[in-house]
């Protein structure tokens, strides 16, 4: 129907999200990046919602 998928995986989808902005958002992304950099870590899932304008500010 749609050709080959980019990925198929088991995901953890949060029931509700937590909005994060500013310094919290910055530190959260640093934490998640740090975790993903670890050789043994395969996936990181979170219930964060970082609004687009915050993402843009973080560049």
């Amino acid at each position, binding site marked *: *129907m*749609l*050709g*080959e*998928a*980019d*990925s*198929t*995986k*088991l*995901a*953890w*989808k*949060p*029931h*509700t*999200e*937590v909005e*994060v902005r500013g*310094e*919290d*958002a910055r*530190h*959260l*992304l*640093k*934490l*998640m*990046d*740090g*975790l*993903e*950099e*670890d*050789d*043994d*870590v*395969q*996936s*990181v*899932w*979170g*219930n*964060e*919602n*970082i609004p*687009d304008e915050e*993402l843009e500010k973080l560049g």
Partner: protein
Amino acid sequence: MAGHSKFKNIMYRKGAQDKKRSAIFSKLSREITVAAKMGLPDPEANARLRAAVIAARAQSMPKDNIQRSIDKASVGEAENYEEIRYEGFGPGGVALIVEALTDNRNRTATNVRTIFSKNGGNLGASGSVSHGFERLGLIEYPASAGDSDKVLEAAIEVGAEDVESD
């Protein structure tokens, strides 16, 4: 369909991660080897392996590398890997689930705990966070796969619970 994707954050972070190709290949091949070991080393007969191979192909992993990772399973290289899930909280009170494949529980636990505490988070007990999530199959297509109507139609046809786009 949602206008904003909940997975946009993941896209944003993955942008920076793409630069570390070797790290990605290492994770992809580990998943392939472990998946191949868990069932038949044949993507047609092993859903987890099929998913792992799809993911590897999407990252342009060469066919040879993929096959080598599958072959590693039969020579016993996947024997020692186990799946571990860590749960904790990060800045902003965000709940986090970390999935790892490791041949050394202690090393991984120590590293994960350190990363959490160094970055304003804390590791919690198993189950402390995951009750706030549901386990779902996630299938990602590139935008070129079709327009929103086509994708929505395909999703409905296969009984998808939700569709999101970036």
